[in-house]
């Protein structure tokens, strides 16, 4: 007996687990006929979920948290059943700004030195308001840019302007000189480089080494009401992520994704992110280990502390009570459901549901059900750690 399940995603490389789960027959093996829908925008995707046109959706990790805090233009409650991908964003600048940064004394230009890149960017910003394009007001992109420049500076008031620019239109905004810098998910960074309108200066993971990027979101209560479909999909996604963690499978994964007409991306655009070999500018390709992570280090586990971190950042920026916000953020990341649905399948199920974010600087074995979990580094570039308020 297979049950149909509709999932929405955007045109992004990190939709990979959903496409692999469908095309390798992993969802079907779990009794789920997975139907994928490409959404034209994050707001449209959120509305599809709210209006029950889809059952689940690939969401930017801050979206469910922002909704829980009552921020933004829509009502409705959604929750994160699991993390779909960790990291995978790039920060880039216009060629004009790249030339100015290269001329500046600070920074040796190492791809991955967030402190040096931040200082250089802020020095450049001192002469003009620096306009940074991000895909959505509630996105890890916006959070990373905010955290990075605040800690690298802080910038003078008004020196940085963050704007929403849909990633597929980012190259137009760069060409027209409307943004000086951007933070986007792949393939849109590589696409800007390929068009000659952007240069990459930093992978997102240089700011936070283990940032929950996309989550599997469902309407609050849906997963508990539909345990067979929710659990089936999550187990299929676990197998898809595991398959994607084998480098030998990546060429096939890229081919598979390029065939998806909804995604509408070529192999050339998909491969850089999947393989972690990024074109920084014309004829410069740099390997970025762990550029995007679907599986290792319990990547899919929705840590309560990740929800709390996002909520805390949103609370600071939107002047909300931090303690209340953190509690709401924690509730949105459903580690309890992940534990229930993945059960015996995940050999590295963590023993705890929250952690101190930013405390792991080398791969570290930690307590788990079968003692096989190694946490990957999750450091913030400034060495800070985030300890959520105790549960009250």
């Amino acid at each position, binding site marked *: 007996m297979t049950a149909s399940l509709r999932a929405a995603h955007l045109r992004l490389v990190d939709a990979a687990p959903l496409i692999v789960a469908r095309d390798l027959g992993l969802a079907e093996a779990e009794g789920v006929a997975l139907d994928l829908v490409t959404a*034209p*925008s*994050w*707001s*449209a995707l959120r*509305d599809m979920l709210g*209006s029950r046109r889809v059952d689940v959706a690939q969401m930017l990790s801050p979206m469910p948290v922002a909704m829980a805090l009552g*921020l*933004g*233009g*829509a*009502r409705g409650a959604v929750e994160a059943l699991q993390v779909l991908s960790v990291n995978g964003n790039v920060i880039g600048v216009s060629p004009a700004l790249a030339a100015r940064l290269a001329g500046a004394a600070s920074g040796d230009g190492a791809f991955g030195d967030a402190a040096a890149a931040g200082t250089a960017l802020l020095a450049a910003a001192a002469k003009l308001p620096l306009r940074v394009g991000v*895909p*959505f*007001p*509630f996105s890890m992109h916006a959070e990373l840019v*905010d955290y990075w*420049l*605040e800690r690298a500076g*802080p*910038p003078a*008031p*008004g*020196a*940085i*302007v*963050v*704007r*929403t*620019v*849909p990633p*597929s*239109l980012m190259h*137009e*905004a760069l060409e*027209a000189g*409307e943004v000086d810098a951007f933070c986007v998910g792949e393939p849109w960074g590589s696409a800007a480089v390929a068009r000659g309108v952007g240069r990459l200066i930093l992978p997102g993971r240089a700011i936070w080494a283990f940032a929950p990027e996309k989550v599997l979101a469902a309407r609050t209560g849906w997963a508990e009401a539909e345990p067979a479909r929710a659990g089936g999909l999550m187990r299929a996604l676990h197998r898809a992520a595991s398959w994607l963690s084998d480098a030998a499978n990546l060429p096939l994964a890229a081919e598979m994704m390029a065939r998806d007409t909804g995604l509408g991306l070529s192999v050339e655009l998909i491969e850089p992110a999947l393989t972690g070999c990024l074109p920084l500018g014309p004829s410069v390709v740099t390997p970025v280990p762990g550029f995007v992570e679907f599986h290792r280090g319990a990547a899919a586990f929705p840590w309560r502390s990740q929800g709390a971190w996002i909520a805390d950042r949103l609370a*600071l*920026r*939107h*002047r909300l009570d931090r303690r209340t916000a953190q509690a709401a953020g924690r509730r949105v990341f459903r580690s309890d459901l992940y534990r229930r649905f993945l059960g015996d399948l995940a050999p590295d199920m963590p023993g705890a549901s929250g952690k101190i974010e930013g405390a792991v600087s080398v791969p570290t074995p930690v307590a788990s059900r079968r003692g096989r979990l190694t946490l990957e580094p999750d450091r913030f570039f400034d060495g800070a750690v985030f300890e959520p308020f105790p549960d009250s």
Partner: protein
Amino acid sequence: MHGFLSPVIHDDGKDVVNEAVPLRIVVVEPDRDRASMIVDALDAAGPFEVTVVAENSDLSHRIAKAVPDLVLIDVSSPSRDVIEELALASSPLERPVALFVDESADGLAEAAIEAGLSAYVVAGLTAERIKPVLDAATARFAMIQRMRAELTATRRALEERKVIDRAKGILMTARGLSEDEAYALLRRTAMGQNRRIPDVARALVTAADLLG
């Protein structure tokens, strides 16, 4: 001070819409023909003060400059995400807008979404004032959606015709077939492979192009 999205002072939804002044509507639509169709429909239902924003660039400031009570945009436009920025208190707009989600029985919002229309409204606007705008816009968006679907179908049919003609030409030259025989061969191949004739024709044309 925290963060760098500088806050803009706004009132809290009290007395924000003056009943005597016509509603200010912004239509975000880059296609000039479609935009004028929407404006015509609104004018007929008016009086409204309608501004069309055709450019994607710097969208939130272009919208903010018109100080709208309502913003109408195609559901499928990627630029919708820019409008979410206007829902924040820190937005360049005086009063934040929210996606119009109707909970009344007449299903105004559902009908709009069905037609491919997203509507954002400012705080404090009553449903009675929104209804005529949404009714007119919904009807027009539904019509545009139909026209677009027809256009896509026509384009595809035309493109497939061209590909089939080229494939027939290739077969006629390469195998010395008549036009009818070439078409019959394409049809047999398609049936044998359980594919559509245009798909077989496209594969042949691609192969022929590659072989020079």
